[in-house]
């Protein structure tokens, strides 16, 4: 009696609990459906209305151009420190074997910078493929064909830049032209396959990019950038006539000239002038001193202390480069920043005296930042410096080189003189006009002009390989370990071969040497 009475008394409580349970069970679908908090997915992103609804994907590709691997240490080491114009710099052991091997060869398959270049450029390419995938497959975004072509053109321009770097760095690389996700593990393609792919991308880009952008988008890829890069691709393939044609399209476009004095090109105020064909854009302010910038200038900055701690002091101009300048060539002073020695103060372009006893006698003056900007941003690393990928002078010299190789000496001399005339400025006593019509002689002169005009600017190593003189030149510069057949290319990173389960193969020369 007592028990049952109690049960009856307790029934309400029991039923209440059962009701709670049932109610919770009934709403089971909603309970487990949890949308991401504070994050967009590709289905929920509120695509902006504006110039192109695909811009948010295109901008991710531009963003990848600023990355450490694509535009900072690994890039600088591969394109400049490997050459005879630059030394690793800094203190002897700094950077260890990875850095030392980039300077003195051979580069080991375990080299972290080689792996960085591989992953960095493929990430860049991947971001371009995403743009192309979105344009082709995203049915929720409505856009005109013209807009679609423009977005595709930008993506293909950046992708071509990525592959052009990869093919010159590594030779054979996998050709990834779609969003592959996890099935990206494919074998390498020969340069003979990669180059036509790059050409097609750039031809498409040149045909569909605008001549210029308004101030809001200064520095976006243009027709001129695509043609200029295409000229360099043709030049590398020794397609002289096509290189001339592509370069000529840039020259005739009316967008570029040599009005910017040489000593202004490289500073903050020289960004995006009429000299600039393509620059990787960077910016910084006190709120975001590094995030929207590039570590490019910081890696090469003066390795001092206190307010002279401007960076790592890597990629310093070599003595060989100093000797390369003709007497009185003012470009030397804008390229090389000297460390003060007792009785010989080194002066910056802003009139400061460099300290005594820095670890290196010289630094790359082209990345020297404005001290006022350092104070304004509250950072000495110069993350705001754009990377000059393609300058008008480079286009002119490419034209000159191609013309000379094609036998059109007169056209070559004309373009060469344009570049020398600007360097000469008002001083008639220096850098005399070249008049030789001997093709061989002119070839050497144009090569020399390229070297000094573009010194420390990412061209020298690739130029040496392209001209087939890398081994001789580097041996003359004391880099005796350099073996042309092996070291013209970087080894395929062992980390990537390992990840690929053997799908990727090592370059034959690296494998057997």
């Amino acid at each position: 009696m007592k028990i049952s009475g109690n049960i009856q008394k307790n029934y309400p409580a029991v039923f209440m609990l059962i009701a709670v349970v049932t109610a919770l069970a009934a709403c089971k679908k909603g309970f487990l459906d949890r949308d991401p908090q504070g994050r967009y997915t590709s289905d929920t992103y509120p695509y902006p209305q504006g110039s192109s609804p695909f811009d948010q994907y295109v901008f991710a590709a531009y963003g990848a151009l600023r990355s450490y691997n694509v535009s900072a240490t690994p890039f600088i080491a591969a394109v400049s420190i490997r050459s005879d114009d630059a030394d690793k710099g800094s203190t002897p052991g700094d950077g260890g074997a990875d850095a030392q091997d980039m300077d003195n060869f051979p580069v080991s398959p375990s080299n972290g910078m080689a792996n960085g270049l591989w992953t960095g450029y493929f990430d860049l390419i991947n971001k371009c493929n995403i743009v192309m995938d979105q344009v082709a497959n995203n049915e929720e975004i409505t856009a005109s064909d013209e807009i679609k072509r423009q977005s595709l053109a930008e993506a293909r321009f950046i992708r071509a830049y990525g592959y052009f770097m990869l093919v010159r760095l590594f030779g054979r690389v996998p050709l990834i032209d779609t969003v592959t996700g996890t099935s990206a593990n494919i074998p390498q393609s020969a340069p003979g396959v990669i180059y036509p792919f790059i050409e097609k991308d750039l031809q498409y880009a040149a045909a569909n990019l605008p001549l210029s952008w308004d101030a809001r988008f200064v520095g976006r890829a243009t027709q001129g950038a695509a043609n200029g890069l295409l000229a360099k691709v043709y030049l590398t393939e020794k397609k002289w006539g096509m290189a001339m044609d592509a370069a000529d399209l840039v020259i005739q476009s009316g967008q570029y000239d040599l009005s910017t004095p040489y000593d202004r090109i490289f500073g903050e105020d020289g960004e995006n002038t009429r000299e600039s064909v393509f620059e990787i854009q960077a910016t910084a302010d006190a709120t975001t001193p590094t995030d929207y910038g590039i570590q490019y200038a910081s890696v090469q900055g003066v390795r001092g202390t206190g307010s002279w701690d401007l960076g790592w002091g890597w990629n310093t101009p070599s003595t060989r480069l100093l000797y390369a300048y003709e007497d009185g060539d003012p470009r030397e002073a804008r390229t090389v920043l000297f460390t003060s020695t007792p009785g010989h103060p080194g002066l910056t372009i802003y009139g400061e005296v460099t300290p005594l006893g820095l670890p290196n006698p010289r630094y790359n003056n082209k990345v020297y930042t404005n001290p006022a900007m350092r104070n304004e941003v509250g950072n000495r690393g110069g993350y705001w410096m754009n990377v000059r990928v393609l300058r008008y002078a480079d286009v002119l010299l490419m034209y000159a080189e191609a013309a000379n190789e094609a036998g059109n000496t007169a056209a070559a001399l004309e373009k060469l003189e344009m570049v020398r005339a600007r360097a000469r400025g008002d001083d008639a006593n220096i850098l005399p006009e070249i008049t030789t019509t001997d093709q061989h002689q002119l070839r050497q002169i144009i090569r020399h002009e390229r070297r000094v005009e573009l010194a420390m600017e990412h061209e020298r190593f690739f130029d040496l390989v392209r001209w087939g003189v890398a081994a001789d030149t580097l041996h003359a510069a004391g880099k005796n370990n350099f073996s042309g057949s092996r070291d013209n290319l970087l080894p395929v990173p062992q980390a990537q071969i390992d990840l690929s389960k053997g799908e990727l193969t090592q370059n034959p020369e690296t494998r057997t040497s």
Partner: protein
Amino acid sequence: MILRKCLLIIALLCGFYRYAHAQQALKGTVQDSTGAPLAGVTVHVKGATTGTGTDAGGNFSLSVPADAVLVFSYIGYQTKEVPVGGQTTLKVTLSSSTAQLQQLVVIGYGTAKKVDLTGSITTVKGEDLARMPATNPVSSLQGKVAGLTIVNSGRAGTSPTVRIRGVNSTNNSNPLYVVDGVFQSNIDYLNPADIESIEVLRDPSSIAIFGLQGGSGVIIVTTKRAAKGETRINFQSNVGVQHVTRKIDVADAAGFKRLYNAQRENLGDDPFDFSNYTANTDWQDLILRDAVINTNTLSISNSGDKTTTYVSLGFNNQDGVLKYDNYKKYIARINEEITINEHIKVGADLTGFYWSQQTPGADLNNALWAAPVVPVKAADHLYYSMPSFQRAQVGNPVARLDQNTGNAINNGYRAIGNLYAEIKFLQHFTFKSAFYADLGFDNNRSYTPLPFRYINIAEGDAATDTTFDETARTSVAQTQTQNRKFQQDHTLTFDETFADKHHLTVLAGFTTLYSSSMNLTGNRKDTVLNIPDNPIYWYLDISNQRNPGTYGGGGGEEAYMSFLGRVGYTYREKYLLNATFRRDGVSKFSPAQRWGNFGSLGVGWVASEEPFFKDHIKGIDFLKFRGAWGQVGNALGTDNYLYLPVLNIADVGVFGDNVYPSVSPKYIPDPRLHWEVVNGIDLGLELRALDNRLSADINFYNRTTKDILTYVTLPGTAGNYSYYTNLGDISNKGVEVSLGWSDRIGKDFTYSISPNFSYNENKVKSIGNEIDFELLGNGGVNRTATGSSIGYFYGYKQTGIYQSEEDLDRMPHLSNSRPGDIAYANLDGDTAITPGDRTYLGTPFPKLNFGINLSFGYRSFDLLIEGQGVAGNKIYTQRRNVNFAVVNYETNRLKAWTGPGTSDVEPILDNTRSNNLLFSSYFLEPGDYFRLRTLQIGYTFRPQMKWKTGIRQLRVYLSGQNIKTWTKATGYTPEAPLDNPIASGADNGVYPVPAVYSMGVNVTF
């Protein structure tokens, strides 16, 4: 003071009670079947609230009515009722043979008699944890449970890494903690002294009831409740000093100068100008210290007919051995249970937790790397900078310590509570509902002061100068994090014994779990004023909004829902059967993938209950065979939303000085993502023999994890995305043995010896068909491949050093090997050392874990000795493979090769030779160790003294922990991190595990 008042009141109340009833005084002793006194036995008068407990000598005294019946109860022993019958002294023996049979073990959603278990569960008593000088209760489990691997850290407030039966997954292998029913990922918020017991559930049949979250094992924690029929006040305190016994042996100034100049010579450079570097600084000494650890707990428990109450206050304070490292926790608990009538019981638990932490400004690696030739400081705010060859990468360790000291306030609050009601009806049914909430709020305020001035000592052309970073400005930052968790459990239990021999328990339940988090962070730099170094100013609004700053915030949530059931059946406590089922749904996976069914089946046979056994087998008191199979899921540690294409919007497009948003995939989503499935069988034997003096518990297990959840590194061609997916099968096979022997010699001497060890063999059976690339960790150092242990070390095998050009001519070598370089074994049969010569070099996971506990008692003295160790693993001394700058050398480099015949182990001093940096056995050292974990001697005061002080029991003890470690490893501790299964075992400067010398007191009133 307060304590004394309480005692007075309680004493008065007791006295009043005594005089209010005409009663007689009764004295007695309680012992076990061997005659050993039993301490802590609860003695209470049946049907009344009067009660007491026995002291260390087993003695009790009580005033009772002459016709009273006394109830003696003790965990693990059979409760005994004794009528007083007018006696004034009693001698009671609690039967120890049935004790173990009656021992209750906490299992999921209920308890079971230990004898009825068909899985392997090990119980550790809370008192064994509370007497160790540690703020985190998990750390003291080390060496106590077979099959449990614990990696302790000496860093104040850090939770240890726990692995149960090896690594089941390539991903998160942490166990699930269930604290009084609440699912938790850690028990940092618990005070060791508040823990009644910890149950370690290892086999699938025990953990299947926890479904998706239990795949890597479960640790159930039961907190203390009031003991029946008495009021008790307990105070425990422990204070100790932590001391780093093993420092890493680095070169002194003279050694460094010699080695660096030798390196420069090898690189073709002139000797470095050390003429002004005259100091000899031991940086480790300057950032390490002897540190205090202190734990205190005061608890009061009371139990009456209607209510039981347990209240406790805890305060733990641990200084880390790295200067300024400190962690404090304050814990207040109340557990209350109200019996409304014989059918309804309601209760509530509430824990309030407050912590504060000072993170060390110093960095151990910094101290190892810094050149010993530099003096520390010249004056306040004026320090010496490192020499030019490491100035950019390595700062002055003491300056760094001082710069970062006292600049952050980290603290947090947490409130964990539950409400439950239990209704018994129709005699055999119990319905229980519980609601849990766990709310956490963490705060951080920090300050970046102006930098110090630095003296650059003159080198070569450079004169001594003093520099100061003029662009640096002061800034402040604030962060707030909020965590919320809500859980509800509803269970209906049926429990009935039919015909005195069939015992049936049926459980059905429903549970949900929801958790979410939110964070807000901001910082502001004052470009005009210098914010003072005083915490009262460390708020964002101290600087006006025109000053630069960044702000951020985010959140996340997840939910689980489950239905569960269990059937337990025993026949005459002889044949045992258990079956469990759980259906789980989780928000982490897509609707098509989120529901799964898990379950287990276990059987047992208590052979010693068979008549023939009782008749014919002598000496064996208890023998049980058991076997179980189970299948569980594991989704612990899986991030939310991974099946959805979440975007990364952090990158931007920059044009001129214009910044535009961009999007790119945050990761590569796997829409088919689901939990991993753990299948396992477990065979066990439990034995007690020789009058229960010998006990043995032996388990064999074999379990396979399928569809392992893991983050994989994709080939570079896939872009820079992470990818989380299910892949592969891993098996863990092993044996666990726990033995125990306890006995007494003569009247006064008792002792026990209990060794345990476990052996685990880990093997990757496949890494799946989904991927066509390798699974590599730590940059390729760890490799996970079919047929080997997970994340094994993969590299070259050192055979020696190339002594000369002749060596190079006759031995296979790398293309650029030179004399003085490491010679590697040529294993692939070609003529050179190539990547094909890399091989298995060992596993980071110990195959063997062992522990031994010895305890001795002589009269009132007790002595405890615990040892613990591991074997069969390797440690990667990654801290030595540093190549970004010139850093100080460990003393092994003093023996570096300098010419033919000078060394066959240590390569030439030349950090530009990439061959010697390749991952090889040169960087591995054995991870085996044996550690004297505890040496503790205690004295328990005799009962006579209690009458004067009100003290029932008082134990004081001296304890030493980690006094000595035997190992060949060279780091601060041989316990390299094992938290990421595919990238484990690298010593990158592991925080020291110090020796702790402490003394403590445990007093009960």
